[in-house]
């Protein structure tokens, strides 16, 4: 598959450097944007003088190369992944991946800290009046999860899934959260996180979205 700038596909490079140097992060201006919102994405931790290769959509094709740390991106409805690759003197030295989920009524994102164990915080944010928010988070095969803060939710932790539901209503801009620890099966293990958040809109109808934010750990 050809890429638009005629260089090595970003995904291959990104996978090649995972776990080597984890210095760069993508920080969006809004973690729970509305669809059509123009965001500022900032690659923090990239060395000066490096080129940043941006892939909007996570399809492995570089959409933009920037010399500065900030770019703008218009969020589409639903989930899209953004990958940035740091290239210095023609060599990919670092990368970061972020899921951006844009929905009019519900937002959810994941924040990851540490590496062994990894502390994950999931925040569910109401963007409209919703009822019974909940999340379902997959546990990577071989990894172990320990819930350290249920945030007031009913939860069920099984070997492969965490399910949690909050028996309450959330008004606009209110949020609930929970935190858990992830233990890798072996030092240096890398995993991809996957989960969804859901709720019922007060005016009716079920809402379900992907959980945005960090998707690769550590």
């Amino acid at each position, binding site marked *: 598959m050809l890429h638009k700038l005629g260089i090595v596909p970003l995904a291959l490079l990104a996978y090649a450097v995972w776990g080597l140097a984890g210095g760069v992060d993508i920080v969006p201006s809004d973690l729970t944007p509305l669809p059509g919102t123009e965001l500022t994405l900032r690659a923090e931790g990239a060395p000066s003088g490096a080129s940043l290769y941006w892939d909007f959509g996570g399809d492995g094709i570089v959409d933009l190369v920037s010399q500065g740390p900030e770019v703008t991106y218009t969020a589409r409805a639903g989930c899209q992944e953004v990958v940035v690759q740091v290239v210095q003197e023609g060599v990919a030295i670092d990368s970061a991946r972020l899921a951006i989920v844009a929905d009019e009524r519900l937002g959810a994102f994941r924040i990851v800290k540490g590496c062994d164990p990894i502390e994950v915080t999931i925040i569910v944010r109401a963007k409209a009046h919703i*009822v019974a928010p909940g999340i379902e988070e997959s546990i990577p095969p071989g990894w172990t999860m320990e819930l350290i803060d249920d945030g007031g939710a*009913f939860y069920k932790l099984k070997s492969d899934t965490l*399910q949690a*539901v909050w*028996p309450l209503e959330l008004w606009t801009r209110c949020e609930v959260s929970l935190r858990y620890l992830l233990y890798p099966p072996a030092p240096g293990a890398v995993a991809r996180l996957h989960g969804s958040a859901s709720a019922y809109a007060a005016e009716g*109808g079920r809402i379900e979205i992907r959980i945005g934010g960090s998707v690769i750990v550590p």
Partner: protein
Amino acid sequence: MVRKISLWALAAVLTALPLYAQGYFSVKQGAVQVAIEPLVGTVSAEEFYGYDAAQASTTCPLAEPGVTVMFLYRDPAEQLYLFIIHGQAGGPDNSSAQFSIQGVPPGADFIVQDDPVGWDPNDIYDIVGGQLAWVWAPARTDGGVLGPLGTEFKLTLTPGIMTGIQKVVFKYGDIASPQSVELNLTDPIEIQGMKGQPPVASLVVTPTEPRARQEITFDASGSYDPDGQIVEYRWDFDGDGVVDLSSTEPVVRYTYSSGGSYDVQLTLVDDVGITTTHTYPLYVSTVTVIVTRSISTTTAMPGYTFRVTVRIHTDQDLVGAGLEEDIPAGWEITPVENGGAVFKRPTIQWVFLDVIRAGTDRVITYDLTVPKSELLDTIRLPQPFCISGVFQVKVPDIVVDVGGESCVVVDDCLSVLEAITHMVVADPNTPGSQDKIDLRLSETITAAQLARAGELWRTERPVIGTCGERIDLETLKLAVAYAKACVPIDRPLPDMPMANVSAHRTIRAPIPCEGVVIGFYDPQGQPLGNKFTVKVEISTDKDVLGVGLDEDLPVGWRVTPIENDGFIYKASDNQWALLDTLGAGETREIIYEVEVPPTTTIEAPPPDGCLVLASEMIAGRVDTGHPCVETEVAGQNRVDLTDCLSVITAISRWDVTRDAINLSLSDKITFQQVQRAIAFWLQDEVVPRTCGAGKVTFELMKEIVARWLTDTPICEPLPGAVPDICEGR
């Protein structure tokens, strides 16, 4: 239905030996039994005996020289006495007599002693010890008078050593000219007095000249009891004193294993226990030639051919033997197997030119064709026709009637069972092939015939040869019993131990704790929730032949078999039949699905706080062909019906994707359903398609969360839960 008629009944020569019980007293010794009347006198017993102390003799006019005379004597006071008079001896020696005596009634004693004990120490009158003895000189007598005896007694006098006495004579009747019965000096003499009259025996033995290993009919149906009824017949066929058979019916059959002379003893017992024993001397020939006829059908149709087989068995060599059969006029005979004999058609005779050796069998087989209908116009059907036959031998000189089956009934139609056993099953691989009737086939049902019968039953098609009759479940089970027992249908089925057959029904509703729901449809518009499954387990502790299950469901409910486990299913009647043996300890499972019409109207249940649903019942019965056992199907029989769901059921069936009821979902509550329930609860929203208020209450919300967390299906109690007050309602 057995239509054959034995010729024995027609050929029997009746032999009646009646006994006339005149009065209420009898004397019996061995085979001799006589009803007697006491002598009635005008003087006292002492006076009638006329003991002459000077001569040590009696003056009684009934005494006889050299004879012991006994009689019962009724005096003017109506008291009864037994006289024993030993007559004068003819020779020069003393005479003596000894008897043991039993059954002396209380209060009776020897009121006359000839001679008194103090006079003659040789004479003994010990009625307590049961010993009597006399010794008397020539020209004198001895004896005594015992009494009074009352009206009910049974004296037994057993002769001991007797010298100078030739016989015992018992006299009865008119005192002026009494009758007498002569008794021997060895066997016990029973003298019985009764209030009631004893039964009167009559015995007819058929055949009159029986042979060993030939079944003999003993018919005592001519017997009667003058003042009551006979309640028991005791049979001692060989006269050895041991009752071989006790029956309440007067006719019995017996076969002697060997020839010889027998004293058949028939004892009749009436309703007050009085007995009469009758002895019938019977000579059973040692020659055992048995000639039996078997006929391949009990019913024949005009124009049809059936098969006759005559089997000759002998235990000794037979020379110059011949068989002659007499068949109905106009019937066509076709010999099939002559058994080594020469057949002469005009006279229907077979002659054996060789010796029929002892221990061998000869079989003669021929077919008989019934005239066509037009030739039978003058006869109203059904009509029995019979064959008679004689087997004759020159050496030894024997004439034997052919026994066994002799008659057939000619009719336009066969019974269903007859038709099955004579059916030539159509070949399914031959186009146009149809069932046929061949009356020459045996009366034992084959596997192919049984299978065909099952198919005809299942499809409700008429059976060939029956004038349109169809097989019902009862007849089918009977056919199974005969087929599996390998017994011809004109014979009784063998005795089998009674079995405990049980059947248990389990009903699995589409929503287990809810029942059948009406008015629910899938996205394609097909009804949902209106089908349920039923499992009936049938078992037995002993073998049974042929099993039927009859399930009675409400009208309009449609059954679809899922698992028949060897049974065949008849849709029109919801019946299942097992054309096989259900073995001891074996269990068969029938599973079927029932569809309740989606248009069924559900009556509103009473609002009593518990979930009470409208319901319908299923009734079922299992019965067997042989032995005949019938039992109701136990277990579940109620089908609940509803057109709305309980709230928790609705939540468990909530399809969050479609946000609608999906009855195909399970009893377990999922995360998404919990989330939906919370939304219903928080928003105080009515859950669609539910009964009553239809809202998720606070209590129910907790229960839903608890069931989700504990993975407990909605119909099962939560761990540690207290039984609900509605449980079992």
